[in-house]
């Protein structure tokens, strides 16, 4: 195909760049005189030939393809590295710097990040001559540092930017503490004293070891109060509610004031009385512990000396940030991770742990897989094996494929409208009428979320299963049928086992998609805070009607719905890391299962 030029010219000598001339490759271009003024006819011809060269060689296309792949890999790796790095360093305790500003004020905090910015003229006007010159010398740019200053109750802000030109001196005094509290976020400052039963014990004399001991005791008291209030009183409340519902059920079934209703009331009265007594006893216990707790206080002071007094039990964790060894830092790091993985969130989700969210995500994904697997496989089996392949089946198949493209929020609307408001409300009418008007299944919950996501992901499973089924060789089916197996026996014993790896692949894809989906869940059951896990010690143990927390929604909530998005930012990364990790673990498990199946199906034949 190449070229008019090549035919016209004699075999070319080696080109000037030392490249050996390939046979058939035209070197017309190089043969032209090197003078910049090329003959007018040569220029267009040269360009034309270069174009032919370009497309016939194919290598530029190879570069484009490789470049596309490389770009994709870089994007994904970069994303993962960013999430991993930010997620992993979040819990590492940093130093506390005390910055003396030029106006004499003190700022103490953990440096979060630094950046270069260009102060506006209205800022420059306020500076003194020397500072202005320094700014001008660096081209009008100044660096500034974001400090996590904590002490929200004192300053009304958690973070503060400190530009370089305001700084007079930066120190890291060893007696600065980073104190995580149950309320108001963290505190950065010094520990002045411990107040116990009215005595004031100076921190310096009391000693850090003793303080840790006191703190452990205070935390134990706090745990005890929580256990009484949450678990034990929760249990009593559960049984009280059960009694109330029993009476209400009798009233609904037989009429208000009927013999049965009065009987139920009479039967329930002594039990209710006993439960109420237990409730009062537990409340008294909790109150007693709280009274002891009330007497132990910690007196804190910020860098400037402003004092703040809090109960010792309100302190979650404290450490002298500037005098920690490697071991201590690692200790703080891992204790924060432990808290993150095993505790409930607090402070509008920006602090504490995400255990309910981990649990909710895993439970929902597993339930979804349980729902979607049989549904999708059965549909695909019918479509591929039984249905007469015609126009109708084609239409169904196209519709199924298109379902995969429906925006997920639409599924959320459908789930809410159909599952919660129609199916759930009917279930409530039939089985839980005594609880009305408060809905049981008639609102979003774990079950409806799982089913909604199952609908969302069923096309993936159907398509994958259909492909897996059609990939089972005809010879295997015929072999089975020739043995006198019925169609169903052939499908169950021969086709399905051989298609299983493909089906598992579809299921894995569906799980990955479902576990990461957030939008529809916001409509059908995910909430900001649901400390009650869907599985607990009360019959029937798995509470499918309960709303739950989800890591994906947690990320959105912490990142964009919280009081202070800067404070939530590290948590966003940690939670993202955890979500990616959770999905990776679930997928890895499913892939292991699939590979075991595959090995069984293709034992070495060589």
């Amino acid at each position, binding site marked *: 195909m190449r070229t008019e030029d090549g035919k016209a010219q004699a075999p070319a000598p080696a080109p000037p760049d030392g490249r050996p001339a390939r046979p058939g490759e035209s070197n017309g271009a190089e043969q032209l005189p090197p003078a910049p003024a090329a003959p007018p006819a040569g220029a267009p011809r040269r360009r034309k030939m270069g174009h032919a060269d370009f497309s016939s060689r194919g290598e530029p296309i190879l570069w484009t393809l490789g470049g596309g792949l490389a770009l994709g890999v870089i994007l994904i790796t970069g994303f993962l590295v960013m999430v991993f790095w930010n997620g992993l360093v979040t819990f590492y305790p940093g130093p506390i710097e005390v910055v003396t500003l030029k106006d004499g004020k003190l700022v103490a905090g953990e440096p979060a990040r630094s950046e270069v910015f260009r102060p506006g003229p209205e800022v420059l006007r306020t500076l003194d001559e020397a500072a202005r010159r320094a700014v001008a010398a660096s081209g009008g740019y100044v660096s500034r540092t974001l400090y996590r200053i904590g002490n929200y109750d004192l300053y009304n802000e958690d973070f503060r930017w400190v530009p370089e030109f305001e700084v007079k001196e930066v120190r890291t005094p060893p007696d600065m503490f980073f104190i995580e509290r149950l309320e108001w976020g963290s505190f950065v400052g010094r520990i002045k004293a411990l107040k116990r039963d009215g005595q004031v014990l100076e921190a310096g004399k009391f000693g850090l070891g003793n303080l840790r001991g006191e703190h452990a005791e205070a935390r134990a008291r706090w745990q005890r109060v929580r256990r009484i209030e949450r678990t034990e009183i929760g249990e009593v409340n559960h049984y009280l509610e059960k009694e109330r519902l029993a009476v209400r059920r009798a009233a609904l079934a037989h009429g208000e004031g009927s013999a049965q209703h009065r009987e139920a009331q009479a039967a329930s009265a002594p039990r209710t009385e006993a439960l109420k007594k237990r409730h009062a006893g537990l409340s008294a216990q909790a109150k007693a512990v709280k009274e002891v707790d009330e007497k132990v206080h910690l007196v804190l002071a910020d860098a400037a000396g402003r004092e703040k007094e809090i109960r010792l039990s309100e302190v979650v964790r404290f450490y002298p940030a500037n005098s920690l060894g490697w071991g201590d830092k690692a200790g703080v790091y891992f204790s924060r991770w432990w808290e993150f993985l095993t505790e409930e969130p607090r402070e509008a989700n920006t602090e504490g742990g995400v255990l309910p969210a981990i649990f909710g995500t895993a439970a929902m994904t597993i339930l979804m897989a349980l729902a979607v697997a049989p549904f999708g496989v059965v549909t695909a089996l019918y479509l591929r094996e039984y249905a007469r392949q015609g126009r109708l089946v084609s239409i169904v198949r196209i519709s199924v494929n298109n379902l995969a493209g429906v925006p997920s929020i639409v599924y959320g609307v459908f789930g809410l409208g159909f599952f919660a408001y129609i199916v759930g409300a009917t279930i409530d009418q039939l089985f839980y009428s005594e609880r009305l008007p408060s809905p049981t299944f008639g609102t979003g919950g774990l079950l409806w979320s799982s089913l909604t996501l199952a609908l969302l992901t069923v096309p993936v499973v159907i398509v994958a299963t259909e492909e897996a089924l059609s990939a089972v060789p005809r010879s295997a089916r015929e072999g089975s*049928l020739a*043995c006198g197996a019925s169609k169903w026996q052939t499908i169950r014993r021969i086709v399905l086992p*051989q298609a299983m790896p493909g089906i598992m692949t579809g299921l894995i894809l569906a799980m990955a998609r479902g576990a990461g989906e957030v939008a529809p869940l916001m409509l059908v059951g995910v909430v900001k805070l649901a400390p009650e896990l869907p599985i607990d010690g009360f019959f029937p143990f798995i509470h499918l009607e309960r709303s739950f927390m989800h890591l994906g929604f947690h990320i959105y909530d912490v990142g964009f719905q919280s009081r202070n998005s800067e404070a939530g930012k590290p948590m966003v990364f940690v939670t993202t890391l955890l979500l990616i990790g959770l999905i990776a673990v679930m997928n890895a498990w499913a892939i292991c299962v699939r590979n075991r199946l595959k090995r069984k199906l293709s034992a070495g034949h060589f």
Partner: protein
Amino acid sequence: MAAAAPGLGLEMEETVYHVKEGAEGANLELENFCLWYGKAQALHGIGMKVQKGIVTALIGPSGCGKSTLLRSINRMNDLIDGLSVRGSIRLDGKDINAPGVDVIKLRKRMGMVFQKPNPFPMSVFENVAYPLRVDGVRDRRMLADACERALGEAALWEEVKDRLQENALGLSGGQQQRLCIARAIASDPDVLLMDEPCSALDPIATARIEELIARLRGHFTIVIVTHNMQQAARVSDNTAFMYLGRLIEYGGTNEIFVNPRLPRTSDYITGRFG
């Protein structure tokens, strides 16, 4: 071959029969059997009596309908959409295409071996036990006995008796094909249908399968489709020569190969076409 324009001539020709009778007569009778894939007719008025207990070979050029005919006998063609048949195939006097015939029961009376070995991806034992399992046999002893007997008859027992629980896909090609034969005869059928059973095997494995067919002769009515004329000559008692969906000549193997009655048969056998 194209120049011979055989289409018209064939309409005229009658099948020539000189069948070697088996000791027990025929147990598979085809009468004027025709078959259409949609509108295309693949088999034209086949009439033949397959003798019980001996080996019948089907030969003919590619696309002549041998496999279609074989697959009609156990109704494997039912899987194909738009298939229609006319005429009858009778097994022990009963039409297999009659309404009300249980096709699964019918297939249980017939074992089938395919071109390419197609063992299931399960253990050797489960492969052979499969026809009994789908028949509802659960008894471990019965399965084990049937498995040993079938593998023994298929001349595979000695080779696999220590690896019954291993995956059948780990066997060699020839072993796999003998395993498929064992599977086909495990439920003790009357008829054994073989669709070019050696076409995917090397000469040594082929020789073993042929030996096996010779051993099975007498136990089953065997119908074998083959492209290999030497093979047909070696293993079969009767040979049916088919051409363009018609049965041309059907008779004793020696007769067909040594002294074919029709010039077309002789042309095919001597390799003048096909």
